[in-house]
């Protein structure tokens, strides 16, 4: 089932290039349909959580909604503000779009289904997914709109800040598994998934990935009620839909990464010899857990303010991510049993949750006073 096999008849051309081309075409098509499904699924799930029906008119249960949206978006006029910087404005789309798709090159969907096996695939995934902030800055600056500029600056600050705890959490994984290859990390988890040994790292990854995806409660760069779409405010038609496509592809990438690194990917719990069908099923099922979490957080959390966002990254997530690395180092250096990792990391995870819980309630608030006779209290001033 390797992608190279598809290119076998076309031996006239250099086979590697042909295979790469075919893989890219296949990937783009598959991801486009996956994203179309994701938009439909998101609308239905969110509607369910909000006691609505969601799309119901286009086809049975609105299943054609994504196609209708696509046709509408592609057919829409592609506007560019007269004062916009043409180069930055038009290239920004690709600066966000391309890294998101490149990241999928290193994703092992099953043991064999990987477009480009590489020994440093975890590093590659993190590096490529960290590129998108350049595109956000370009879009924010190039649109020549104040809202877009605000959104772009917010996006850059947020993406850089949350990249750090994300990578630190991954360093913890690399220490435990002593591998930077996602495939090897999956194989490491044949008995127990890494979420058991790294609960703190998992929590940090989960939070930071929501921030990297700019979804609620971290949708500050695009905050609808503040900057009214942020960097996307001046985009329309196909360019806007490419931004949306990218954000969903990123959602898939981070969900897959979480499924591989913390939940055992296609390996856990049935082992390696179950055939590619079951492996694919396991991957997609674990990925779906993350996606449902992203949708769930979307419907239940208000948005953080920009200073709270920064202090959460720098004062909570990064110190705790360093703590996780320290704990891992302690266990590795003194050769302690694995159970120590579970206990210490779990306790630290609980401490982090408790800290955030307490931070909001630093000073107990005076509750409302219920006045049944307002007259005597009138001389307050």
């Amino acid at each position: 089932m390797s992608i190279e096999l598809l290119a076998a008849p076309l031996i006239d051309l250099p086979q590697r290039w042909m295979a790469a081309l075919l893989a890219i075409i296949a990937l783009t098509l598959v991801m486009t349909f996956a994203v179309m499904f994701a938009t439909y699924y998101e609308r239905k799930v969110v509607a369910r959580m909000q006691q609505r029906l969601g799309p119901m008119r286009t086809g049975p249960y609105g299943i054609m909604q994504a196609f209708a949206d696509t046709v509408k978006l592609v057919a829409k006029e592609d506007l560019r503000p007269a004062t916009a910087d043409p180069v930055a404005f038009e290239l920004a789309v690709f600066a966000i779009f391309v890294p998101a798709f490149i990241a999928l090159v290193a994703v092992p969907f099953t043991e064999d289904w990987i477009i480009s096996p590489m020994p440093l695939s975890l590093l590659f995934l993190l590096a490529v997914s960290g590129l998108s902030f350049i595109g956000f800055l370009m879009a924010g600056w190039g649109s020549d709109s104040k809202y877009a500029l605000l959104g772009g600056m917010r996006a850059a600050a947020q993406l850089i800040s949350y990249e750090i705890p994300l990578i630190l959490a991954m360093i913890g994984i690399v220490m435990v598994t002593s591998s930077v290859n996602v495939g090897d990390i999956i194989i490491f988890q044949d008995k127990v998934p890494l979420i058991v040994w790294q609960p703190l790292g998992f929590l940090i990854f989960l939070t930071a990935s929501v921030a990297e995806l700019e979804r609620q409660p971290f949708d500050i760069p695009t905050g609808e009620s503040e900057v009214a779409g942020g960097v996307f405010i001046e985009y329309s038609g196909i360019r806007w839909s490419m931004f949306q496509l990218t954000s969903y592809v990123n959602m898939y990438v981070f969900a897959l990464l979480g499924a591989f690194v913390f939940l055992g990917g296609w390996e856990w719990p049935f082992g390696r010899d179950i055939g590619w069908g079951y492996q694919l099923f396991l991957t997609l099922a674990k990925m779906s857990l993350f996606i449902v979490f992203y949708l769930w957080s979307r419907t239940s959390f208000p948005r953080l303010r920009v200073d709270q966002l920064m202090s959460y990254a720098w004062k909570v997530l990064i110190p705790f991510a360093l703590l996780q690395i320290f704990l891992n180092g302690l266990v590795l250096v003194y050769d302690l049993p694995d159970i120590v990792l579970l206990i210490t990391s779990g306790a630290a995870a609980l401490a982090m949750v408790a800290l955030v819980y307490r931070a909001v309630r630093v000073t107990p608030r005076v509750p409302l006073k219920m006045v049944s006779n307002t007259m005597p209290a009138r001389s307050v001033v």
Partner: protein
Amino acid sequence: MTARAKGTSSVVVEQDAPEIVDIPINMGPQHPSTHGVFRMVLVVSGEKVLDVTPHIGYMHRGGEKLMEAMDFRQGIGYADRTEYLAQFSAELGYVLAVERLMEIEVPERAQYVRVILTELNRLSSHFMFMGAFGIDSGLFGTSFTYAFREREYLQDVFEEVSGDRLMYAYFRVGGLAWEVTDNFVERVHDVMKTSAKGIQDLDDLLTRNEIFMARCQNIGSFSAQQAIANGLSGPILRASGVPWDLRKDEPYSIYERFRFEVPVGHYGDVYDRYLVRLEEMRQSLAIIEQALEGLPEGPIVPDKMPRRLRTPPGEVYAKVESPRGEWGVYLVSKGGDKPYRMKMRSPSFCNLSALREMTIGQYLADAVMILGSMDIVLCDVDR
């Protein structure tokens, strides 16, 4: 640092360190969270708001002048259109003014029905606030759908009673337009049950949410002195710690007969305003419960009601506690069937005047929250 301008070899542009400027941002009239066609020009330095200039008047239709050209019966409809989230409160204020001018005694049954409908309307208005405020705080529509579900049930009752979903025009000078439906009491009992559940749903969703608390607490704080100096009224004033509720302090209609409590905040911040409104909804339910118990049988208009409304010369100011604060009507009559001068004191307008003082020094995202916490009705601001 000197830089040579591109293409011009002779011109040398002197350039110092890059100048830091505060950018003015135009928010509205087309912005998702300005609650209508409100516009404010924010001067921001990064994310901090340095100055705010509110611009109003996009919805100005000269409603007061229009009401001067209409007779007293037609004016009721305009009161609806001015305050379109608390229509019954607005109607009540208007008909109270005319009744005081004409010295009409309103029958008991009409008084009770008025109180029930006005308090139900307070519920639907506060539900609207809860929904919109959740969206202002960045929640993706969940509070909005919860709130609109309840508003739908409430509007069904209003529609059954008045025949209209938005512009009821059901209160008339002297009483009511027509008798309520036969199953009115059961319907109100039903809708009270669903509303109580809706209030609890919103309470569960928002009140103890850590992010919501972090976003709402200690922003837009106003002390009691500041609130009074700015002429605030309604939940904003009470959140600042001033126990002032016209239903208690200057009872109109029959409010002195009901036992209810007035929630009063301590900090005067956005969170307290939210809590005050939440508690007010529960108190409204208590008022409706008592009013339903005491609802008497009888006529809904006085026996000797003139067919044509003519007031004696004089002037009157009637005010009611609308969900947003003191909604007042000032009427001057020189006799005849039309007011000579008509002026509305709208709480939205008066409360909005404090926006600048509240917003300066806060973050850009908080400006949206503070505006949302005022719960303005733009039509009522601009009239």
